């Protein structure tokens, strides 16, 4: 049953870049991404990969260099995480506006303050309006495969946008599981060398890039073009996924569905913790509950039609956001509700916040969500969002507050 080799999510990301035969890797380390660039640095130093590997002085410089190299026609890979993504934030919008087809891996880690290392998705979702395409992966296998698909997507003339591929810190980045690496020769057929027909930075053919466009009309045109290119991803991705499946035997959709066909109750989740949701679904199925799971995979563009088609007519849906927009709630929840709004047969949709800062979501917490789903299906109004947090976790937090010198009452 098992095959391939055991790889961490970080090693899988490095292998994705290696198999994509990238030309240039500007790098800056941050936990939990560091292992990716350590591996690539080692391979570059040992001559295993022909790429030029350069360490930069910050993520801002790293992304600027990545965008500039991609603009010159190089195939570029880079990776960051959390505070690093935010430190380079300005350049995300800038290089997406340049319409350069690089791939940036983000290893999700919750944002300060307070500072932590483990995963949630406030980092990657902060970049949701930057113009980058976003692919979120659940397994180490999907990390490799998504990077390969991401280059095809990014370099397609109907798209020509940078792509962010996300994997969770710790729960995927440091987790080994079986991965099948496609042969480099087969990847080369799927992903031929990048031959841009519009690359703009050439020594013998100067041109201006990123010029100022005052007055709004010209700006509106270019900005809206980014949106149209994003919308094209919805169809281009399906073409690429089909070809990928025929070559490598693994089919990835815009969304991933698990036991969804006849499901009454549906969990909507993303990234590595979706595996835990699948375990809960299996457990509930064994108890006779018709449950299923929808995993958000391509998040930008937002596949609203696919999501609405998958969720309409269910008894109840719970969106478990592993992120929190203070003052609003779960970030993907309103997008999913919007996608369903035009459907006549739309289910009640609950908002749940779980796994912040990498907090575990226990079987009991999943059971609490199912209980809410059943109540919602019976017409009860459920308070949203619900934060998944156990009594023992609350007690432990209170004990720590006390040690920190805070008077905690009851």
């Amino acid at each position, binding site marked *: *049953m*098992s095959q391939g080799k*055991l790889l*961490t999510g970080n090693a899988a990301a490095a292998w994705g870049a290696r198999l994509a035969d990238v030309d240039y890797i500007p790098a800056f380390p941050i*936990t939990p991404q560091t292992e990716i660039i350590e591996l690539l640095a080692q391979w570059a130093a040992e001559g295993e990969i022909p790429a030029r590997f350069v360490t930069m002085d910050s993520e801002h410089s790293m992304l600027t260099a990545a965008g500039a190299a991609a603009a010159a026609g190089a195939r570029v890979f880079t990776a960051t995480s959390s505070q690093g993504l935010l430190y380079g934030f300005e350049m995300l919008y800038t290089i997406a506006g340049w319409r350069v087809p690089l791939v940036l891996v983000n290893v999700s880690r919750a944002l300060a*303050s*307070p500072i932590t*290392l483990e995963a949630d998705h406030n980092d990657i979702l902060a970049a949701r309006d930057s113009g980058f395409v976003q692919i979120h992966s659940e397994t180490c296998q999907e990390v490799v495969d998504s990077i390969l698909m991401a280059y095809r997507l990014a370099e397609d003339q109907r798209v020509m946008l940078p792509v962010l591929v996300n994997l969770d810190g*710790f*729960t*995927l980045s*440091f*987790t*080994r*599981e*079986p991965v099948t690496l496609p042969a480099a020769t087969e990847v080369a057929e799927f992903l031929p060398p990048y031959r841009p027909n519009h690359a703009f930075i050439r020594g013998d053919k100067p041109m201006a890039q990123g010029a100022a466009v005052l007055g709004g009309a010209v700006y509106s045109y270019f900005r809206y073009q980014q949106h149209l290119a994003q919308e094209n991803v919805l169809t281009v991705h399906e073409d690429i996924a089909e070809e990928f499946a025929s070559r490598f035997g693994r089919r990835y959709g815009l969304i991933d569905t698990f036991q969804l066909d006849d499901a009454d109750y549906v969990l909507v989740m993303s990234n*590595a*913790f979706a*595996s*835990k949701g*699948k*375990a809960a679904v*299996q*457990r509930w199925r064994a108890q006779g509950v018709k449950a299923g799971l929808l995993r958000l995979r391509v998040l930008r563009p937002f596949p609203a039609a696919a999501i609405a088609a998958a969720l309409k007519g269910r008894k109840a849906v719970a969106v478990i956001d592993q992120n929190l927009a203070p003052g609003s709630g779960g970030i993907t929840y309103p997008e999913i509700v919007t996608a369903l709004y035009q459907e006549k047969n739309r289910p009640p949709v609950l908002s749940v916040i779980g796994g912040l800062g*990498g907090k*575990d979501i*226990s*079987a*009991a*917490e999943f*059971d*609490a969500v199912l209980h809410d789903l059943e109540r919602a299906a019976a017409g009860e109004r459920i308070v949203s969002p619900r*934060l*998944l*947090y*156990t*009594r*023992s*976790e*609350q007690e432990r937090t209170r004990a720590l*507050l006390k*040690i*920190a*010198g*805070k*008077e*905690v009452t009851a």
Partner: protein
Amino acid sequence: MLRIRFHGRGGQGMKTASRILGSAAFHAGLVVQDSPVYGAERRGAPMAAFTRIAREPIHERGAITQPDLVVVADDSLLSDPAAQPLAGCDRASTVLVNSTKDETTLRSITSATTRLLVADFTTLVLQSTQTLASLSTALGVIATRLVGLTLADALAGLDEELAATHLAEPQKAVNLQLAQAAYALADSWTPVQERADETFTPAQPLAEVTFDPPRLAVPSIYAVGNSPERKTGNWRQFRPVLHPDLCTRCWICFVRCPEAAISLDANEYPIVDYDECKGCLLCVHECPTHAFTAEKEER
């Protein structure tokens, strides 16, 4: 599915032990997932690593909350609130402790009701390799034995991990010998069984989080200066011991100690604060006259 949790301190090799087990099970054709959590990310600080072994794709992720087998790298972890190696153990769990103490003593420390296996792996490792670096080999292999895998699988798993190190061939050979000795040590122990049913600890009630005033809800620490209350002396595997007759009072150890655990006495000789000294042995390595030696900690 079998769920195995390793507890150790940064530097004791428990991530590697968990990978030796993972690679061995993968070699045996099983589906494997392994991952570490580093906590404080410091040498000597408690850490844990998890290995899941199954015949079907594994849908679990992250920490193992209800283990079938727990491997504890040293018994000081048993009473460390930052480690809690016995958390989530039940009657179906087996706990293996590396210790010189006997089972009765460990039971009285832990009030453990699980199956408890005890052996002194430290001595075994030091006898064969003269360095504790191979504790990962011994405990990874013994775990492989305890989940019912063959010696050939264990050696294949170890071989894969050794290949990723920069060890010279003779050292690799020593590790392979140690692996055979460790595997044989468990001959009288019956392997851990998969749980007959996957019913887990009773449901935890959920808490409601309500508004707290800023004095509580802002992540500031008012009780400043309490770090010394966390004694890090139990992180030590080896203690630095001063031989004053060799000491020239150059103070290099005093300056270099990264924890400021070395002070000077009235005669300007260094004194080690063993409550705080983590046993990094920088002083032993830095001392130009070899006035410090490293002595194995006996607790």
